[in-house]
C-alpha cells in the first residue's frame, strides 16, 4: 500500500474542495450575506492542510487498483466531513450529525434532507447544498482527473472506482480526456437546463440551483414544496432533463461524434426507455382512475417516474397520497435506477439487462443442459468477471439493504417508512413514503439510524464494494 501517494492525492482533494468552497463565498458576496465568511474560513484552512500534504511529490508512484479504491472511499468520507463544516459553524444546521447527513446526502446526490424548512436557509448555504450535488454527481475524483494528471497513466483505477456501472470504459484513449468529455457533456446539459428553466419563467437563482440538482440527479431543492412550487411548464422542463440525465453518457457521446445508429441501438438505453414508458403509462392510468384529470395525471406521473428512476427525488406533488399501485411502482423504480455511466444511483438498468439475460440463459440451460451461451450486450461478449461481479453486487445490495432495515427498525417506526427510507438512501433517491415522504424529512430518526443511512448513501453512490474495501483487513496488510 503506497500510503504516501494516497495522502498526496487526498491533499489534492482538499485543495479541490477548498477551491470549490470559494464559489458559495462569491454567491454570499453577491447577495450580501454574512454567512459566507464560514466558507472563506474553511477554504483557507483546507488550503493550508492541502498545501502541506501536497508540498512534496511522493517518490514512489506505484498506484494499483487497491490504492484506487482506498483513495476513492477515503476521499468521499473526507470531503463529506469537510463539506459539512460551514453548515455546522454557521449554526444554520445546529447538530453536527444533521450537518454531516445533509452533506453526505448532497455529495452522494441522494437529496434526503433533515431540514424541515429549506426556505429558512441563507442563499449561499442553499447554493452550497445544490453545488455539492453537482460535484458529487459526476464525481470529485473524475473532476480532479479532468484537471490534473495525478498518477501518470494509472488513473483508470480511480475512474473505475468512482463511476457507476458494471464495466467502465473509456470514451477516449486518455483517462484525462475521458474525464474531460464526461464533464463537458455534464456541464452542457446543466447549462442548457438553466437556460430552459429561465425561459420557462424560473428566477435565475432557483434555475441554477435546480439545474445543478437535476443533471446530477440529486434532488435538493430551494423550496419546501420542491418542484410543486413551480408552474407546470417548469415541471415539464425538469422532467425532460431528468429523463436525459438518466441516460448513459455514452449515448450523448455517440450523438456528438455523429454515430447515431450506435447511439440508438444501445440496449441499455432501449430498456431504460421501455421501463420509463411503461411506468409512466401505468401510473397515469392509475391516477386517472383515482380522480386526476388527464394533463395533471400525466404530468405528475411523467415527472415522478423521471424523478425516482433517475434517483433524483424531486416531487411535483405529494406522491405519498397516491394509490398504492402507483406508490409500489415508484418503490420498484427506486431499486432499478438509471443507466450505468450516468449520474444515477440504484442497481442500474445495465445490470437489470444482464440479470434478464442470465435468467433466460439459465432457463434455456434446463432444456439443453449442455448449451453453451455467451451473454452479449450491444454485440459485445461480457467477460465472466463482469457477470460475476454484477451478480455479487445484487447479493450485497440486498444484504446491505436487509441489515440496514433491521438496524433502522430499532427506532420503532412503521415498516413502510423504514423500508422506503433505506431503499431511498441506498439508491441515492431522497424521499421515501409515509413518515419520510416528499413533504416530510429524515430528522425523526435517531442519531444511530442517521449514521446507518449515511453509510448506505455512501455505499450506494460508490456501488458498495469500493467502500467495503476499507473494512477488509487484507487491504491494509503489506503485500
Amino acid at each position, binding site marked *: 500500500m503506497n500510503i504516501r501517494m494516497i495522502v498526496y492525492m487526498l491533499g489534492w482533494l482538499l485543495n479541490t474542495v477548498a477551491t470549490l468552497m470559494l464559489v458559495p463565498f462569491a454567491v454570499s458576496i453577491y447577495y450580501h450575506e454574512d454567512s459566507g465568511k464560514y466558507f472563506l474560513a474553511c477554504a483557507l484552512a483546507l488550503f493550508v492542510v492541502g498545501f502541506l500534504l501536497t508540498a512534496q511529490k511522493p517518490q514512489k508512484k506505484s498506484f494499483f487498483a487497491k490504492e484506487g479504491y482506498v483513495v476513492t472511499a477515503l476521499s468521499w468520507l473526507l470531503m463529506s466531513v469537510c463539506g459539512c463544516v460551514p453548515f455546522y459553524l454557521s449554526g444554520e444546521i445546529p447538530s453536527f450529525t444533521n450537518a454531516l447527513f445533509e452533506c453526505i446526502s448532497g455529495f452522494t446526490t441522494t437529496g434526503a434532507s433533515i431540514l424541515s424548512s429549506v426556505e429558512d436557509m441563507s442563499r449561499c448555504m442553499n447554493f452550497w447544498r445544490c453545488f455539492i450535488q453537482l460535484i458529487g454527481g459526476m464525481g470529485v475524483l473524475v473532476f480532479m482527473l479532468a484537471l490534473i494528471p495525478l498518477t501518470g497513466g494509472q488513473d483508470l483505477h480511480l475512474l473505475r472506482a468512482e463511476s457507476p456501472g458494471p464495466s467502465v470504459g473509456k470514451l477516449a484513449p486518455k483517462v484525462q480526456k475521458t474525464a474531460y468529455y464526461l464533464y463537458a457533456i455534464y456541464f452542457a446539459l446543466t447549462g442548457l437546463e438553466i437556460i430552459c428553466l429561465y425561459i420557462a419563467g424560473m428566477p435565475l437563482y432557483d434555475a441554477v440551483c435546480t439545474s445543478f440538482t437535476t443533471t446530477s440527479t440529486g434532488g435538493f431543492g430551494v423550496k419546501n414544496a420542491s418542484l410543486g412550487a413551480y408552474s407546470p411548464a417548469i415541471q415539464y422542463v425538469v422532467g425532460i432533463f431528468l429523463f436525459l440525465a438518466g441516460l448513459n453518457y455514452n449515448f450523448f457521446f455517440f450523438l456528438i461524434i455523429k454515430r447515431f445508429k450506435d447511439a440508438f441501438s444501445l440496449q441499455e438505453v432501449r430498456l431504460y426507455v421501455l421501463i420509463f414508458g411503461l411506468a409512466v403509462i401505468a401510473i397515469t392510468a392509475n391516477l386517472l382512475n383515482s380522480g386526476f384529470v388527464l394533463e395533471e395525471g400525466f404530468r405528475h406521473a411523467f415527472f415522478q417516474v423521471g424523478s425516482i428512476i433517475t434517483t433524483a427525488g424531486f416531487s411535483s406533488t405529494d406522491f405519498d397520497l397516491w394509490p398504492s399501485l402507483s406508490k409500489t411502482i415508484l418503490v420498484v423504480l427506486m431499486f432499478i435506477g438509471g443507466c450505468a455511466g450516468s449520474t444515477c444511483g440504484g442497481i442500474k438498468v445495465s445490470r437489470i439487462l444482464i440479470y434478464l439475460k442470465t435468467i433466460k440463459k439459465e432457463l434455456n440451460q434446463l432444456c*439443453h*443442459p449442455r*448449451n*453453451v451461451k*455467451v451473454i452479449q450486450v450491444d*454485440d459485445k461478449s461480457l467477460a465472466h468477471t463482469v457477470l460475476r461481479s454484477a451478480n455479487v453486487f445484487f447479493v450485497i445490495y440486498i444484504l446491505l439493504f436487509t441489515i440496514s432495515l433491521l438496524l433502522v427498525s430499532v427506532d420503532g417506526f412503521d415498516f413502510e417508512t423504514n423500508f422506503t427510507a433505506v431503499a431511498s438512501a441506498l439508491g441515492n433517491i431522497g424521499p421515501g413514503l409515509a413518515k419520510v415522504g416528499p413533504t416530510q424529512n429524515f430528522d425523526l430518526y435517531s442519531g444511530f439510524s442517521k449514521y446507518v443511512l449515511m453509510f448506505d448513501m455512501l455505499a450506494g453512490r460508490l456501488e458498495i464494494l469500493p467502500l467495503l474495501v476499507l473494512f477488509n483487513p487484507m487491504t491494509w496488510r503489506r503485500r
Partner: protein
Amino acid sequence: MKIIIVGCGKVGYTLAQQLDEEGHDITVVDTNGDKIEQAISTLDVQGIEGNGTTFNVLSEAGIKLADLLIAVTARDEVNLLCCLMAKKTGNCNTIARVRNPEYMNEMNYLRDVLGLSMVINPELTCARGISNLVEVPSALDFTTFGKGRANLIKLSIPDDSLLHNMTVADFSKKVHSKTLICAIERDGEVVIPNGNSVLQNNDKIYVVLPPSELHSLLGKLGIKEKRIKNVMIIGGSRIAYYLAKRLGDAHIQVKIIERDFATCENISEMLPHTLIIHGDATDRQVLLEEGIEDVDAFISLTNMDEENLVLSMFASKVSDAKIITKVDKVAFSEVVGELPIGNIACPKNITAKSIIQYVRGLQNSIGSNIETLYRIIDDKAELIEFRVNQESKVTGVPLMKLNIKKNLLVCGIIRNGKIITPSGKDTIELGDAVLIVTTNRGMANINDILV
C-alpha cells in the same frame, strides 16, 4: 498465361495440376522444400523454395512478367500480404484465399484497398451450397447462375412418375415449358439429351429454370416439399458458422453440437441466436437428448470424414431428416455414393474449381468469355455461362441453324435480366449470357460450341 501459385498444399497442388493441364506456365512457391520437390517431380512446373511475401522470392518467381498470382497458403494474412506485394511489384491480377469470418465481413473493402481481383473462401461457398439444399430439400444438388437468375437443380425421378417413358420434347410441351432438362444421369453414365431422349424411373436429371418456377415444377412432378424448420449441425467449424448464419437469416432454427468448449464459446459469440451445445456428437445420448429424431435436417460437418459418415448413417436410421454429409476425401466416391448419407458436400475442390473458372475467364477476356463454370456428375459434364461481348458466327442465327457440337446443349439465354428457355427458333445476341451444358472439355469461347 504465366501464373505464380504461392502455397503448395492440397489446393495449391490441385491448382498447379489443373492449370498445367490447360497449358499455362506455372511457378509454385512454398517454404516447405519437400512440397516443392513433390510438385516439380510430378508436374511440369517450376518450383521455388522460399517465403512468397518477400520481394526477393517474388522477383525470382518472375512477378514482373506474371499475369496472375494465386495465394493459397494456410494463413489469410500471408495470402493478403502476398497479393499486396505482387500487386505493388508486378501489377498482375491477384487471387487470395481468405477464410477467417472477420475478414469476410469486410471483404469488399479489403478487395478494393488491396486491389485483389478475386477472393475465394471455400467454407463460405460450401455453406452457400448446403443452405440452398436445405431451403430446397428435394434437390440433390442446387446451384445458381447468372447472378441468381437461373437455378441448376438435380432431381431424382421418383418411382411411378408421370415422366416414365416420356421424351424430353414431350416434357416441355406437357409438363413444364419453362424448365429445360440439360443432363440425364443413368447408371453412372451422362447423357446430354435431345428432344427424342426418353426419361425413365430413377433417372437423375439436371434441370435449368428460373427460381420463381421451382415450386410449380416440383408440384407438377408430384415431389412433396417439406419445409425445413429446424436443423442440427455437428461440428462447429467455419462452414458451420457460415451455414448457421445463413439459415438463421432465413428463420430456420439451428442447433450446433461441438466437442471443444473453447470453440463453443467462440461460435456462441459470433452467433448469439444459435443454440450451441457442448457435447460429443459420437455419444448417442447427446444426440438423442438434443432431439435427433425430430430434426428436419441433419448436417455433419466435423473434420473427420469417417465420423461424418457414421453420424449421417445413424441419423438416417433414427429420423427421416434431410441429411447432408461433408466428405473431404473423394478417393472412395463409388463406395460413399452408395451409403445412406444424403447429399455430399465436398469443400476441398471448391477452391480449385472457382479459381480455374476465373483463370479461364481471364484468358478469354477478348471476344466471349466464361462467367461461371460448374462441373456436375463427378466432373463428367460442365455447365458454363458465357458472356457474349462481340459479334461472332453464333450471334443473330436461330439455334436450329447453327451446327452445334454433339453432347452440347444450349440450356439458357439470359437477356435483360430474364432467363429464356431456348427453342430452335431463338437466337444468341450481343450482350446475352448463355448457359451451355456439355461433356466436351476445354470450352473457352462461345464460338467453341460450333463444330
